[in-house]
């Protein structure tokens, strides 16, 4: 059986600006997070895999179908929830799902399927209301549900929680977890390490159109290093720090090592690795360039 996604030597430039540089990637089921800052090429990769954009070089196959030569077959298998809302503002959430279901060829099954889906995601009440009145979080969840109206070969979620408040973010996470548990292959893009860690079996870090690291969350965290105990003075300036592996024993050792002496108002913070730290550890380039 063909891998879910198979990308070979994929390249894409906009003008003279290379966005993807000879990218190779194989995904075979599960949930993959593409992690990277703005401009890393995440959305471009999703656009190519979903037939919206043609690559300049290399090839990409989804469930064995070439995204350029066999775009029609790919479109029958992929579902995408992009960054911009795809919902029709003048329709209700349920009507949006039914519309997409009918376009996908569900015919009369579209309505019962929409109801069933809304119920499963606990969105029945929202489904009856006009999209116009939705909050950002509700919009995103219904947009995600819209991608599930017909069975998907692969589900692409482009920054599914960017711009959402913490509660909505948690609900979207729940939705994605439920899909993954049901066996749907998901490729999601994200800018935050904690999202990748929370949802994905495997994390691929993309930067400047190249894959700079990939592995499970644990493997990446090992690359980044453990938590750091930081000693601050009253003004918040770092006056000492000590690396730990996160265990109580090592934190205790670090605390002892960081004797604040007689500094007035000194305090301790436990810092977890951030995406910036991940990039600093993963790439050898200066941080400013990576964060660009």
């Amino acid at each position, binding site marked *: 059986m063909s891998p879910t996604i198979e990308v070979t030597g994929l390249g894409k430039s906009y003008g003279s600006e290379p966005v993807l540089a000879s990218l190779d990637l194989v995904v075979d*089921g599960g949930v993959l997070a593409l992690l990277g800052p703005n401009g890393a090429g995440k959305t471009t990769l999703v656009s190519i895999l979903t037939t919206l954009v043609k690559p300049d070089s290399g090839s990409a196959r989804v469930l064995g179908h070439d995204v350029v030569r066999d775009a029609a077959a790919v479109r*029958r298998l992929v579902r995408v929830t992009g960054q911009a809302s795809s919902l029709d503002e003048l329709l209700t959430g349920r009507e949006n799902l039914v519309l997409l279901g009918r376009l996908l060829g569900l015919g009369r099954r579209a309505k019962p399927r929409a109801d069933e889906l809304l119920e499963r995601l606990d969105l029945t009440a929202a489904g009856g209301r006009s999209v116009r009145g939705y909050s950002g979080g509700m919009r995103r969840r219904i947009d995600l549900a819209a991608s599930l109206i017909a069975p998907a070969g*692969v589900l692409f979620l482009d920054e599914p929680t960017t711009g959402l408040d913490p509660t909505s973010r948690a609900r979207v996470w729940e939705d994605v977890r439920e899909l993954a548990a049901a066996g749907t292959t998901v490729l999601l893009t994200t800018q935050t390490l904690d999202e990748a860690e929370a949802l994905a079996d495997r994390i691929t870090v993309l930067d400047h159109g190249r894959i700079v690291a990939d592995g499970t969350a644990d493997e990446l965290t090992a690359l980044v290093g453990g938590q750091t105990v930081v000693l601050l003075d009253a003004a918040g300036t770092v006056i000492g720090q000590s690396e730990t592996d996160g265990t109580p024993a090592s934190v205790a050792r670090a605390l002892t090592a960081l004797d604040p002496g007689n500094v007035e108002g000194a305090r301790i913070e436990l810092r977890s690795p951030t995406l910036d730290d991940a990039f600093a550890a993963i790439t050898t380039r200066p941080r400013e360039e990576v964060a660009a």
Partner: protein
Amino acid sequence: MSTATLQTDDHRPGPRPTAAARPATGTSPLASSGIFIGRSLVHSMRDGEGLIMAIALPVILMLLFTTVFGGAIQGEGYIDYVVPGIILTCAGFGAASVAVSVSRDMTAGAMLRYRTMPITAATAIVGHVVASVVRNLVATAVVIGVGLAIGFRPTADAVGWLGAVGIVTLWILAVTAVFALIGLVAGSPEAANGYGFVILFLPYVSSAFVPIETMPEWLHGVAEHQPVTPIIETIRGVLMGGETRALEAVLWCLGIVLIAGVLAAWRFPRTRVR
């Protein structure tokens, strides 16, 4: 060159994706057109303000021309002169909203989703165009009804009426096609709304409201040869009796539809998606 391989079978037992075995069938261009027409008609019904504007504006315009300006312009019989002109102007008002509908689809994420689906995405625009024609025909019927109520007395027989409806439908289609193209090109729904005003002024520089002879001489060439004049003369001719410029009118409408259609077909796949 970098490589990443994801094999989840080893550490993630559970059901394999089975969806791949039964991909979505999608819909034919004809079927998706039908679905999108239904969607756009629902829009028309839901967008209360838009619907009121599409019907109330032409009616207000007609009352304005027949009662306020009418006496000063031509006195008795002006209503029979001006109603055909109002019908054309009304078509323009109603069609303008297509630019906004199309632009909304193009600039939000809706068209991106349609383009990743097993359908002909451009049929979303067909839906907007057909719904606009239906909406405008309804508005036209209301305008004619109000006209009849306040003294519009056409002399046409059934064939004449059929001809008038035919030419009005063609004109609505032409204006709608132009507005759809504007919606396709405009950067935002607001901009799309703004561009449309140019077309709405066309009827004023034609024989719709006053005879061309009464305009300054330098305007005669423009007024005589712009598309609205032959169309208006044809509607007036078939409804009130008198000369028509039917061939010219039909050619103008079909020409506009053809050119707008070709430009739209060229532009649509070139719209930047990222």
